[in-house]
């Protein structure tokens, strides 16, 4: 029995896998022992996480004076990192929600890890929201909760409050989406478990999944509903993040183009991060048959598309700054490109706009090493984009007497490096304990997109032609 699919649709699972082999391949990292690459990565990530704890404790213990911010530049690495991490998270939602709604089957090999990435990236982002506050111990005041402080309420006019809602909604929906997707796979691991403890834990995790038709029907329905819910979030979350800037009066921030531009940038950086993670994961965990060059190619196409959108946004900003005739705005952009932080601007331009154009070449799109290299470049570029927007806009705004330079301290840098630990430690644990590919869902394309099915189809077609 095979589901007839166009020849043009590429093979999504190579290596003539059987259903059983797929299960075996995906469960192997969970059931086996970790290899030395995993341990090396885990030790490095844990060290970074420890460093993050130290830097964070120092910041909270002594004060934000340990950072390099000042009277004029009130946000710098903190919010840069925040936006960067939120942006990275976006690919997960896009893959699981939008691509689901568009019935893009190739997403099935990558959505699980992309969603995991989203969750951990949002945690990293949230850590910067809290740590950038002068008094993080009262961070909860930014939630509208019943209180006895003289019935103080939050300021619904403030984009930061919108942010609180956007990020918390985003995190909740992503988490639920991710976890519900994991249920059938947990059940697989549970059923295969050989040790008592594995049995116990995966029983707990799988929420009593029994694989009945009713289970599957509800599962599908819920996936659709959650996809419907999170699809607008792909657009809204980063739009709201961009409003942290766009609704202000700071020249260089006060721009109507920000919401779409930020969303494109977020997807851009998110896919780059997915590439970084998956190229390593497929190598280390031996998942080359599931995450194929086709997958990598598809993601690179999205990168070149979003990268170009971002590039057009950069140019539009410049055009509008000139066209508006507003003194402060035009200067802000001239200063971006030619002022004391020109190197940040041109790093951004090179990394985000110029270099991704190389992906017009299919050869390069399908080159794993090159893609890996580019994914790092894009994320560096996107970090600089936020730095450029935040720091170069703030450091020279309206009144020249207050123009200053900003220099980061080791604490800020430490928090950024440490946040990579905060991201990679859970991600590495995820690769060890959770099925990194949504195997149950992947099997839904077994009859249409595996290499053997496609071969068979071709042969059948040939036969038909000869017979006909």
């Amino acid at each position, binding site marked *: 029995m095979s589901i007839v699919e166009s020849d043009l649709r590429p093979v999504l699972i190579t290596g003539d896998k059987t259903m059983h082999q797929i299960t075996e391949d995906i469960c192997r990292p969970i059931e086996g022992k970790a290899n030395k690459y995993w341990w090396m990565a885990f030790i490095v990530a844990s060290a970074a996480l420890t460093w993050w704890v130290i830097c964070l404790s120092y910041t909270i213990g*002594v*004060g*934000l*004076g340990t950072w*390099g*911010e*000042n*009277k*004029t530049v*009130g*946000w710098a690495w903190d919010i840069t990192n925040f936006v960067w991490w939120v942006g990275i998270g976006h690919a997960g939602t896009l893959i699981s929600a939008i691509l689901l709604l568009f019935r893009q089957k190739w997403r099935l090999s990558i959505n699980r890890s992309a969603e995991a990435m989203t969750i951990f990236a949002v945690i990293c982002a949230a850590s910067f929201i809290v740590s*950038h*506050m*002068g*008094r993080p111990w*009262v*961070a909860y*005041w*930014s939630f509208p909760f019943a209180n006895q*402080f003289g019935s*103080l*309420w*939050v*300021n619904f*006019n*403030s*984009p*930061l*409050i919108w942010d*609180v809602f956007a990020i918390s909604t985003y995190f909740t929906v992503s988490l639920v989406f991710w976890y519900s997707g994991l249920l059938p796979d947990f059940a697989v691991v549970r059923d295969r478990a050989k040790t008592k403890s594995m049995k116990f834990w995966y029983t707990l995790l799988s929420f009593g999944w029994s694989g009945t038709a009713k289970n599957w029907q509800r599962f599908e329905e819920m996936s659709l509903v959650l996809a419907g819910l999170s699809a607008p979030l792909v657009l809204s979350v980063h739009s709201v993040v961009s409003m*942290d800037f766009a*609704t*202000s*009066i*700071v020249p260089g921030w006060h721009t109507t183009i920000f919401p779409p531009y930020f969303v494109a940038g977020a997807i851009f950086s998110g896919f780059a991060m997915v590439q970084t993670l998956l190229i390593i994961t497929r190598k280390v965990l031996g998942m080359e048959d599931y995450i194929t060059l086709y997958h990598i190619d598809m993601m690179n196409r999205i990168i070149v598309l979003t990268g170009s959108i971002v590039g057009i946004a950069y140019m539009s900003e410049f055009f509008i700054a000139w066209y508006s*005739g507003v*003194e*402060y705005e*035009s*200067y802000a952009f*001239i*200063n971006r490109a*030619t002022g004391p932080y020109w190197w940040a601007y041109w790093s951004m331009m090179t990394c985000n706009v110029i270099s991704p154009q190389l992906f017009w070449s299919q050869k390069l799109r399908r080159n794993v090493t090159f893609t890996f290299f580019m994914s790092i470049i894009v994320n560096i570029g996107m970090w600089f984009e936020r730095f450029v927007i935040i720091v170069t806009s*703030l450091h*020279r*705004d*309206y*009144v*020249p*007497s*207050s*123009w*200053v*330079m900003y220099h980061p301290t080791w604490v800020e840098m430490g928090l950024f490096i440490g946040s990579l630990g905060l991201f990679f430690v859970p991600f590495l644990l995820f690769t060890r304990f959770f099925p990194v590919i949504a195997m149950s869902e992947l099997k839904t394309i077994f009859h249409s997109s595996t290499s053997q099915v496609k071969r068979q189809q071709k042969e059948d077609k040939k036969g038909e032609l000869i017979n006909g």
Partner: protein
Amino acid sequence: MEKKYWKGVEELNNSPEFLKHRNNEFTEHLPIEESLGIKASSITESTRRDFLKFLGFGVAAASLAACETPIRKTLPYVIKPEDVIPGVPNFYASTFSDGHDYASILVKTREGRPIKIEPNDLSPISGKGVSARVQASVLGLYDNARTKKFLINGMPASKDTLDKEVKSKLADIAGRGGNIRILSSTILSPSTKKVIADFTAKYPTTKHITYDAISNYGMLKANELSFGKAALPSYHFENADVIVSIGCDFLTNWISPIEHAGQYGQTRKVNKDKKTMSRHIQIESNLSLTGSNADDRIRIRPSEQGATVITLYNKIAAKAGQTALSGGNSAMDAIAGKIADELWNAKGKALVVSGSNNINEQVLINGINMMLGSYDSTIDLDRHSNMKQGNDAAFVELVNEMNAGSVAALLVYNSNPAYTAPNAKAFADGLKKVELSLSFADRTDETAALCKYLAPDNHYLESWNDYEPINGSYSLCQPTIQKLYDTRQAQESLLTWADIPVASFHDYIAEHWKGMTPAEMSFDSFWTKSLQEGTLVTNAPAKRTLSFAGNVNDAASSLSNQKSSGEVDIVIYEKTGIGNGSQANNPWLQELPDPVSKVCWDNYFCVSPKLAKEKSLEQGNMIDVKVGDTTISGPVYLQPGMAEKTIAIAMGYGRTNAGDAANNVGKNAYPFISVVSGSMQYWASGALNKSTADDYKIYTTQTHQTMMGREIVKETTLAEWQKNPKAGNPDVLIETPEGKQRPKDVDLWATEAQPGFERPNHAWGMAIDLNSCIGCGACVVACNAENNVAVVGKDEIGRSREMHWIRIDRYYSSDVTKENAEEKHLGQLSMYGEMEKPTVENPKVFFQPIMCQHCNHAPCETVCPVVATTHSSDGLNMMAYNRCVGTRYCANNCPYKVRRFNWFNYSESAKFPYTLYSESERMVLNPDVTIRSRGVMEKCSMCIQRIQSGKLTAKKESRRPKDGEIKTACAQTCPTNAIVFGDYKDSSSQMLSMFKEERSYWLLEELDVQPSVFYQTKVWNHKAEESKKEEVKA
């Protein structure tokens, strides 16, 4: 037998039944078990689980309780002092005088602690305001570096022991005819002078020598030579139409700066009733605060100053029909001619002043003023000034005597020659030969450290005193706090040693003032009135006709010899904050940015960018400057506006024995001073070499120098303004589909007419007249004192984290402007690049005080996530510190950048050992203003505590606050009255009438944030032809 009482008949019967139940509280059966339906024992018994629950609850409750903010207990008065009402300040009229500055003041005390200095507006001298240094002086009271005990050889000693030793030595020395010398800075106090006279009577070999670190002996001597009166005149800048100042920083540093600034401010104000203003020409070597305010500024090297004065004299003499003098500065010929024309045209309303301490130059200046008829109009020698009495010659002689070993006793009062003297080493060496050396210093300063005895003087806020700063103008100083330490007023020490039995110096002064009692008053009421008012002016002295007897020819010929003997000239100048260095340990003054350079916590060599280029020097490079045998190495600060081949360095820094805040801050420049033709010369010639030392960081609060072609400080010329009152200040218009409109007319926001934005009672606001603001920074220090603003130290200044709620922005003009960029064939990119560079040679300087503008459409308010900053119904932008979570979004979104964030816990971190942290300095804090904790935002509150108290006072009297009744700290202290606070709802307010003037504008009006604070255009009084020239250019 003891009586026995029974509780009841049961007890009397004492039945066995009763005995059984006697110890039970409830003798009857209570139906607990029945009513609850459980066994009673199960209620009282607790199971293991319950125990754990209770334990858990207990621990949780105890730890929650421990989370409470610590409570600091205070004790109320057991017996309340009569004059002290907790929470209500008392004001005492008093006087600040440290031999360098003078001000008649009101001291604000709270619960017995002096916390703030305010101007005494009854004073004819300093009634308009007080300077930064006087404002800051209150902190000196609580300075922990003060000596707390009498010292003999550096060891604490009892007062009696010291008195005994000193007295016996004095008697011994006087007995054998040994010389006793009292060395002091200028003494304004008649009673103190009498004390010295009494002391001299007891020990006849005593001589009093007056020595000022920054001396005006040249003028004293010149006046003696010219008019036979060795006194300084008092000046009346308010009467001058044309002011020519030659190297004279009269606005903040010369003779009586507060008085001058007030007078000058008066002449600079223009409004619809006063269409003219003074014209101010400054001829100077380094860019001083006064020079920054001048309409025209001419740069000369200090070595050329004498010759320039001769040229100017000759030009005026030609008009006055007097003979010309030989010599002169030919390069200045044309300019001097123009200046002379202007002066001559303003004859009788002109004033020429020189800051030089050169006797000959001052003789010529006297001659010029005589020809211009300035005496009795802009200069008053009858009501002469006593502000400076230092005698350079006498001091030089004293040092010689000391080194010759002929001085047996030296009592140093309010003077620190081991630090300030031109040849401090000679003084120190000489001091070793003095048998009895004693200092009255308030700390073991450089001189006191070399003296055997230290009899610490009281702080002026703990002292009685009287002053006569200007002939016939008196003021009193009274203690506002009990002595903090074991000190004694110097006058009392002297009286004790002279065996004059007086209970206190108060009685002595009162005795002296008895003679001044007017006939119609009893002494008691006269004394009480004088104390309450703090100031007293007696009848004008008889007018004397002045005849000029100065020998101008001799003066000119010796001035002609004045030449630069080195590669560069070095100006040794005085800074507005630190002054002569006696208050160097005052963190408020150290952190007050220099008005011109904006540098804090340092001095440096001001080097013009041009000279720096020639010598391939960059900012922060160390250079060695050699004058004679003295070499001082210091960092380079690139300062536009310097004369050719001239560098400058400030005095007052490089202290070694002043206290933690001052020690080793900057370099001591006093050794560059030398005594030339009988008086100290505050410039020198020398050589400049790049040093091999590592670069040094100079930290400023302002790292960008120009306005970048933006309309930040709007300017116009007097001629333009007279023609068109809106000159320089056209309406800000923005493009809309309906044509150009003012931003406020195309507003999306609710406006005053709409609900929620009405101002039912008051709408507070502030006017800032940029034309009379001289940039002196008094407001900055006043604000620090009033609002408990943290001092953050040099490192944090370097990180651009100063906490000042009010700042004075200083801009230089740039060569390239938007208007001339095209002419210069500059594209937009290179135009902006060029506009960043200030004019090197002679920039125009702009000052602009900026505090929170209290926007009615405040960008900060909308972005705060937790509503920590809100608007009051009287138009104030308020901060609720306790609600702030510290996102800093408000600061980012403030277009004026006036919000200040608490990066550290300044009040509890030993890294900031200043006013908020130091146990003793904390006493200066204003109890009405909260100390902000770490992580919260703060900013100018428009002195809301003052507004509130003013409103309450008015309310108690069932009236509205009167205009001028409430003043913010900055407005109150401003010597030129450039800042005016008021109520938009009060039709009589001065602020409102200023608002209606055409010169008024909102800073960044195009943003339509609708500030409550507004500015008034700066008007330059350029000469008519020059402004015409500019017009053509434009």
